[in-house]
């Protein structure tokens, strides 16, 4: 009986701070990084429960506006109709165009990349490189990475139906790593030694170039708020922007906001 009472009160105790919990919802690109930060945060403050959900950037904006979450996340800038929300930049995510590790290609222009993904340029020889067919790999319809790539690089041009399609950064990377003729695009932080990030218009996607915003092909990771943060929400945001929180984001391959601002 006593044990039972202890169990019940423990349960009540653990359920009680639910009121002080923080609900975060939005971009599926931001989600894994915020989850990691939240894990560390909850180790430090076990009494505060952080609940991280996905749904996409647009869903994050909506949820913040109508108050169903405390903090929204977005991997794109807000549209003019969404300007009423407060935004906090927590990191930048660069998008790298990658080729096979042994490929002689080091540098592509935006124009050439557009040509490759629209299939105007279908042969490596058209770019003065040895090798025959170019095999472009893109992301699936609806993907945020694809949307950023289309916006930042493709412009008015449309990604060809003849491109291979994969549904994650990892799957694209796997194909490029094993296909000598391949070209793909993934988050900068995920490029490993088996493939190579090319310079775009002469600028390599290095950390420095991203920080000083010389390499333009990056998207912001934002936290969204309806009003001035208070209590646990404020505590969590402060943690994300602290050196510790920023280091966690950086270790996942992002450019932490404190580095961008410091320059």
């Amino acid at each position, binding site marked *: 009986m006593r044990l039972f009472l202890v169990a019940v009160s423990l349960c009540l105790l653990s359920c009680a701070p639910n009121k002080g919990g923080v609900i975060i919802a939005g971009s*599926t690109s931001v989600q894994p990084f915020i989850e990691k930060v939240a894990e560390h945060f909850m180790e430090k403050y076990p009494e505060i429960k952080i609940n991280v959900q996905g749904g*996409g950037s*647009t*869903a994050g904006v909506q949820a913040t506006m109508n108050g169903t979450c405390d903090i929204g996340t977005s991997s794109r800038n807000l549209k003019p109709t969404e300007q009423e929300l407060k935004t906090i930049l927590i990191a930048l995510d660069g998008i790298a165009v990658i080729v096979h590790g042994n490929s002689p290609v080091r540098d592509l222009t935006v124009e050439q990349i557009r040509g490759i993904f629209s299939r105007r340029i279908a042969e490596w020889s058209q770019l003065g490189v040895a090798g*025959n*067919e170019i*095999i472009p790999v893109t992301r*699936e*319809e*609806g*993907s*945020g990475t694809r949307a950023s790539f289309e916006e930042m690089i493709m412009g008015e041009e449309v990604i*060809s*139906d*003849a*491109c*291979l*399609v*994969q*549904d994650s950064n990892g799957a694209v990377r*796997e*194909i490029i790593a*094993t*296909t000598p*003729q*391949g070209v793909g695009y993934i988050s900068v932080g995920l490029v490993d030694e088996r493939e190579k990030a090319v310079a775009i218009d002469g600028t390599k996607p290095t950390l420095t170039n991203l920080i000083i915003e010389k390499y333009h092909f990056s998207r912001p990771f934002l936290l969204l708020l309806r009003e001035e943060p208070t209590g646990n929400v404020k505590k969590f945001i402060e943690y994300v922007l602290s050196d510790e929180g920023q280091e966690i984001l950086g270790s996942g391959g992002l450019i932490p906001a404190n580095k961008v601002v410091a320059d």
Partner: protein
Amino acid sequence: MKDKIAEKLLLFVALSAIMSLALITFFIFQQGIPLIFKAGLGNFLSLKWAPTRGGFGILSMVIGSLMVTVGALAVGIPFGLAAAIFLAEFSSKTIQKTLKPIIELLAGIPSVVYGFIGIVILVPFIRVTFGGPGFSVLAASIILGIMILPTIVSISYDALLAVPNTYREGSYAVGATKWQTIVLLLLPAARSGIVAGIILGMGRAIGETMAVIMIAGNALKIPGSIFDSVRTLTSTIALELGYAAGDHRGALFACGSILFLIIIVLNIVAIRITSRK
């Protein structure tokens, strides 16, 4: 009294299985059909699939699914039938007892493992030997062909065994060779079972998703050759469901509805054929 309770209980369990099928059917069509009307049949049956920009054409995916399935049958039928004939007519009891379970074990390997083998071995082989990306109709056909082998082998084997021994004895008595007996007598006699096995295998090939996503490349363009990449209906659903919202989501359910119809038709045909005497 006890019998009555048991009977009612069994009836309830049986009905719940049928109910879940009915619910799934209802849900898929309820989610998918409105989009078809909204987009219009012309749009739905076109080649342009860009669901975030109003293009809901599934034609290239339907063709992709069919190509991959035909390819799988081209691989699966000769090998499957040959294996069934060998097991039923040429091998001893011991060999049958060893080989048949091994072939049936193929059905127990998870499809993601087939896909993985495809990526690591088959795709690079095709790329190096024939050029192109390697992620292709050919790769998907070979892997799917292997995946449907157990279905074709075991059903055809059972059908061959079901042919009465008097047929064989009669055939040998009039001087036919073993080969003549198999081709002219046993295969026609076992035809309905064999065809049912092939159709069930076909259903499996059309419905397979994971292995196909991994090795078919998923390009939307209709392949010009078997070395080109291909996109099937199932891959589209699995690839895009993660971010799909609104009409895009509806369009994926519409893909599901079409798949559902194809599978139902195949199964009805299979049942018709097997029940025909």
